[in-house]
């Protein structure tokens, strides 16, 4: 049931526990959540779905296709390129932040540095802007 303020959130995360956690988090805050556990699957689902999500939460370290490549693919896709992408990662590579932001990501969040409250807050902020 789509209520006001409810947005579609797409999460790409290969770790089951974290995936569940974020799903739960966003659902708690009234959003509709779709998940994918790898890049290829994600792109498939994103392309197929009629109503595109309002935001994509993208992990960096993913099987089959790296997060960066997924991001590139999204930004090259006519239908998907306008969806804001939030990089949600635990990897500790400084150049990555610039790299992803340069590649079109809207936000780069290091999971472990951000309390879940921070995560929801920042994503909501982004959504309100969109």
């Amino acid at each position, binding site marked *: 049931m789509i209520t006001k303020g409810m947005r579609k959130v797409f999460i790409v995360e290969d*770790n089951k*526990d*974290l995936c569940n*956690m*974020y799903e*739960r*988090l966003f659902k*708690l805050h009234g959003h509709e959540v779709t998940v994918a556990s790898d890049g290829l699957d994600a792109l498939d689902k994103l392309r197929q779905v009629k109503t595109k999500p309002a935001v994509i939460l993208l992990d960096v*370290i993913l099987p089959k296709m790296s997060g960066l490549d997924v991001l590139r693919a999204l930004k090259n896709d006519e239908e998907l390129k306008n969806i804001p992408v939030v990089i949600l*990662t*635990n*990897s*500790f*590579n*400084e150049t990555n932040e610039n790299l992803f932001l340069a590649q079109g990501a809207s936000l780069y969040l290091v*999971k*472990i540095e951000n*309390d*879940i*409250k921070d995560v929801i807050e920042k994503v909501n902020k982004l959504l309100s802007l969109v």
Partner: protein
Amino acid sequence: MKLAIAERKEIATGTIEVAFNLSGKEFHFQAGQYVWITLQRLFYNDEHGQSRCFSIASSPNDKKFLRIAFRVSQSGFKRTLGEIALGSEVEVEGPFGDMVLPDDHSLPIVFVAGGIGITPFLSMLRFAAEEKIPYNITLLYANRNPESVVYLKELEELARQNANFILRNHFDLLDAPAIQKNINEGTIKTALWYIVGPPAMATETEKIIYKLGVSRGRTRLTEFNGYSAPVATGEKIETLAGLSEAVLRALDKNVLVSITDLRGTIIYANDKFVETSKYSREELIGRNHRILKSGFHRVLFYQELWHTISTGHVWRGEIKNRAKDGSFYWVDANIAPIFGKENEAIGYIAIRFLITERKKLEEKLEEDSRELKDTKAAILNVAEDLEREKESVERKVVERTRELKEEQARLIASINSLKFGFIVADPAHRILLKNQAVAKILGIPEESVTMVKISGILEGTVNLLERSERCIAEKQNFDLPEVLFGSKFLKILISPIVMIRDHNEVIGYVLLLEDITEAKILERSRDEFFSIASHELRTPLTAIQGNASMLLDFYADKIKDPEVKQMLGDISTAGHRLIKIVNDFLELSRFEQKRMKFEAKPFAVHDLADEVVKELKGLADKKGLELRFDPPAVSPPNVLADRDKIKEVLINLTGNAINYTKTGSIVIGLELVGKMLKVKIKDTGIGISPVNQGLLFRKFQQAGDVLARDVTQGTGLGLYISKLIIEAMGGVITIDESIPGKGSTFSFSLPIAAA
């Protein structure tokens, strides 16, 4: 000297005395000597003159007359001498002879005279008597016939007048008993014996007295024939001399002529001979030819000469003779035996041409030739030495070359074993030395390795030739840590070769190529590992923490049991702590692996302090503590540092202050100290004892024993990491002061950004 006949008289049977006029003539002789008288145009067959020798009968003190006595004979010479008109002049040469009285008159003297042999003794006796020299002379006069005793009256008179003279007559054969009878034994042994007489008599007498014990040194013998001699051959030589005289005179200018008896005693010497030998004629006549021996020729030489002539042959050769003054002269000599009427050899004649000049030249040539030979030999020696030296040097060179080749081989082997490419090149980029690794790394054939080729290969990335030249010019190393070459990563180093001893001249460069692809991959994989490791650590942590938080935040209403709530709280806290620990570890690891990059940019600490206060206010409020930032009156300049990292440090220090303060305040302040800006964090906390203060900025140390459950979040790494960060910025982090129970002040300084 020409002397004229003054008187003539018969003094004994067949014996005539001739007196020659001496007045006005300078003629000095000693008693006992003789003269040569020459009568010109007297020879019976031709008109040439003849010479004979006669002993002098007169005393040397008689300045008026020179008296000689001779036995008359068939000799033309003597007949003439006996017959020619008074006042006729004859040529007189002399005096000659060494039969003279000794200086020492203490020695008894025995005169043994036979026949005309008395004349020299008469001269001596007359002289001794006149001079009153006390010679003890015994005169033994031996004769067959008393009537022919010459000068008997004079002798008797002299004996009567002088006690020292003893006259003895013996008119028979003179034998040993006769002598012993006439001369006492003592005198026989101690006296000097003078014997003059015909050859047979003289020699016989000599033999006798030797037998009587007279020593050889004590005899003076003259084989004297009275009017010719002192030679043994008498008349035959007379003939000989006359025969050759004309010829000889003609040769006088250039030719040395001498005639000797069979024993080599000189009986004739021509003027040239005399002149050349530098002896006087009387010194030559009667002497043996051997006085001219120079010592130049070997004994064999003379033996051979004698053998030739004594066997009746003519000897021809060159002889080096010695003159009286010790100088030498060379003659080209012909020596031939002279044969008498009965065809037996009676003497030798030597005709010699003076060849000293030529000989000197020859000698010089010989010497020069020898010198030349010596020089040649020396040169040859030197040449040999040089040859040997050369060989030695060549051998050394070969040896050294071999050693060098070995060294070179070893060097090449070791540089070939190097993993990295090694090239030594000269300033013109000519490769002097390289190893195999170069070609291997670059993936080109060994023989194509040249600087041009290598430079071409790396063209896109770096201009190697230009770089090398700059390197040489500036005498600086050039380092390319990472060059992408195809699928490889290369590290390139160019280093100039500077000859310190040669005024820092650069003679070339060394190029090192290192394939760091693997290392890079390793690094990358380490990076990846790091990323993955940190990721793997963080993921479950995030899940733990996130879920715990969610439970507390969003499912609070579902949790009725306060204990469950508390347990969730504990999980959350522990989770936080674990996250912090993991973060610290990861950060430290990164820092230690030098992976952390700092970006130093100017920023205002003022703003940073405000931010931190805002972020940590909640924490402070929870504990009822005041947290504030006291800005200085004058706004300080910006600092040059990495803002994010400095923020971490400030949060760390402020958080610690909050954690370790139970009541009171935490105040952040700023202070300008020289070129640094000091950030101070002052708390009113529990403080740190001096002992523990020293442990503060080390790894894993936590000052304070007990970790209060709800307060402390420190891992012990925070301060250490902060220290690393501050020091990396060029600042200093310290604990300014800390008093247990009162509080602590921590501070760190940062460099001011240039305006």
